[in-house]
C-alpha cells in the first residue's frame, strides 16, 4: 500500500522534476542534461517575446482576479440567504459558467465579440477614433467570468457558516448595516475572499484554451509556450516552465494558508 502510494507520488512529480532538471542544462538539447548552468534562464528572461507575453499574462491575471473578486464577493453577499427567482437564475448562471467546457466559452466569446465589434465599430470608430477588438479586455472578461463564479461559490460557502448571532448582536448594539459589515462580516469572510483572489489569479495565469480563442493579437505566456512547443522543444521552454510552476506554487501556498485561516474560526 505504502509502496503503491510512493509510486503514485513518483508518477505525479517525476515529469515536473525532469523539466526542472533539464532547465539547468548548459547544452542546446532540451531532452538531456549537459553540465549545469543558468544560461537558459538568462535567455528566457532576456527574450523580448517572453517578457511581453509574461507581462500580458500578469496584467490580465491581476486585473481579472481583482474584478472577479470584487464583483463575485458583492454577488455572494447579496445571494446569501436570498430566495426566489433571482437567486435561482444566479445559481444557474454560476453553474453553467463552471460546467461548460472552457473551449466552448472560448469560441462563444470569440464569435460573439467579433460579431458585436463588427456591428459597433462603424459608428464607434469615427466617434472615438478607437476600434474595438479582441485583446486584454476580452481576456479579462472571459477569465473573470469563470473565476467570478469560483469566488461566488467560495465566499457564499463561507458566509453560510457564519454565526448570524454576531450580526444580530452588532445591530442590537446600534451599528449601522455598513458598520456591521465592515467590523463583523468582512473580517470573517476576508480569508475566503483572498483565497478566491489567488485561485482566480492562478487560473487566469495558467489558462491556455480560453485565451487561445479570445486573445486576438495579444500573446499570453501559455500561448507563447504552446506555439514554441509546436516548433519543437527547447531548453528555454524548460526554464520558462520551471519558473511558471515555481510561481504557481508560491501563489498556491498563499491560497492554502488563507483557506486554512478561513476554515479555522477566527477568534478575536
Amino acid at each position, binding site marked *: 500500500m505504502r509502496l503503491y502510494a510512493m509510486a503514485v507520488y513518483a508518477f*505525479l512529480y517525476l515529469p515536473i522534476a525532469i*523539466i526542472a532538471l533539464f532547465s539547468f542544462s548548459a547544452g542546446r538539447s532540451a531532452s538531456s542534461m549537459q553540465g549545469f548552468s543558468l544560461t537558459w534562464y538568462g535567455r528566457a528572461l532576456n527574450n523580448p517575446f517572453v517578457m511581453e507575453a509574461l507581462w500580458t499574462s500578469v496584467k490580465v491575471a491581476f486585473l481579472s482576479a481583482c474584478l472577479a473578486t470584487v*464583483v463575485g464577493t*458583492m*454577488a455572494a453577499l447579496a445571494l446569501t440567504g436570498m430566495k426566489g427567482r433571482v437567486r435561482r437564475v444566479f445559481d444557474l448562471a454560476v453553474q453553467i459558467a463552471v460546467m461548460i467546457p472552457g473551449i466552448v466559452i472560448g469560441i462563444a466569446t470569440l*464569435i460573439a465579440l467579433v460579431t458585436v465589434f463588427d456591428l459597433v465599430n462603424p459608428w464607434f470608430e469615427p466617434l472615438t477614433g478607437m476600434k474595438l477588438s479582441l485583446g486584454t479586455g476580452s481576456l479579462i472578461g472571459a477569465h473573470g467570468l469563470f473565476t467570478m463564479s469560483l469566488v461566488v461559490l467560495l465566499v457564499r460557502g463561507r458566509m453560510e457558516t457564519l454565526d448570524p448571532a454576531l450580526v444580530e448582536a452588532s445591530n442590537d448594539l446600534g451599528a449601522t448595516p455598513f458598520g456591521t459589515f465592515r467590523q463583523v462580516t468582512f473580517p470573517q469572510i476576508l480569508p475566503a475572499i483572498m483565497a478566491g483572489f489567488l485561485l482566480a489569479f492562478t487560473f487566469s495565469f495558467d489558462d*491556455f484554451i480560453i485565451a*487561445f*480563442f479570445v486573445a486576438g493579437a495579444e500573446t499570453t505566456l501559455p500561448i507563447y509556450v504552446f506555439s514554441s512547443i509546436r516548433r519543437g*522543444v527547447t531548453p528555454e521552454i524548460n526554464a520558462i516552465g520551471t519558473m511558471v510552476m515555481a510561481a504557481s506554487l508560491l501563489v498556491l501556498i498563499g491560497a492554502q494558508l488563507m483557506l486554512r485561516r478561513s476554515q479555522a474560526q477566527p477568534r478575536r
Partner: protein
Amino acid sequence: MAMTRSRARALLLTPAGLWYAAMLLMPLAVVLIFSFGERSQIGGYAPGFTLEQYANLPARFAAFRNTLTLAPLGTLASLLIAYPLAYYLAVKVSPKWKTMLLVLVIVPFWTSILIRSYAWIFLLGGKGIPALLAMAGLEDVRLLNTPFAVLVGIVYGYLPLMVFPIYVALEKLDKRLLEAAADLGTPPWRAFVQITLPLSMPGVLTGSMLVFILLMGEFLIPSILGGGKVFFVGNALVDLFLQSRNWPFGSAVAVGLVVVMLVVVGLYTRAAKRFGVGRDDAALM
C-alpha cells in the same frame, strides 16, 4: 441609510448580472443561433435557418468517437489509480502526514497543465521510456503520438481531481462499522466490498463526473501528446474556428459537444441515484 435591503441586493448583484449576461448568456446564444446559420463566402457567418450544419456533424465523427472513448477510458483509469491512493490517505496514513500528503496530490493540479503535459514529451519520446524498453529488449516501441500517450497525459493531468472527492468520502466513513464487521468475523475483503466501497460511492461518482466533464472539452493533451493523430472534439473546434473559420459548423459541433456532455452527465446522475447517492453529494458537483 434609507436604502432598503432589496435595493442594496439589486445594487450588489448588478455587476455580476451584467457580466453573466454579456460574457456568458449572450455568447452562448450566439453559438446557438450561428449553429443554424450558413457559412458566408469569406468564412464566418451568414444569416439563415438551416439544419445543414447539424446534418453535417458525422463529418467530425472521428473526433466525437475519440472523445467518447478516451474520456470514459481516461476517467476509468484515473479512478482505478486514484482509489487505492485515496484509501491509503484516508485510512492508513497517520494524521501527522495526512495534510501534507494531501496537499502534495493537489499541488500539481493547480500548476499549468500545458507544462505538465509537455513534460511527458520527454518521458514518452524516443529518449525516454522507449529507450529503457529497448535496453530491456523491446525494440521500436512507439509511445508518443498514440492513444496510450494521450491516456497517460489524461491520468497524469486529472488524477488529483479524482483523489480528492474519494478521499473526502472515505474520510467520512464511520470506522466503527468496520470494527463491528471484524467483531462479527467478516473477513477484511468482504468488509471492504460490503461497507467501504458502497459508502465511498458518492466520492467515486463526484470525482468521475468532474474528470469526465473536463475531459470532454480537452484540447491540450491530445494536441501535445497525440501529435494530430489522436484528436478530440476540442481539436476539431480549434481547427474550425481558428483555421478554416467555419463558424456555423463549428457552432453546431460545440452545441453537439455540450449536448453529448449533458446527456452522459444526465445518464450518469440517474445511475448515481440508483446507487442511493443523495442530493447532498450531487451538490458537490
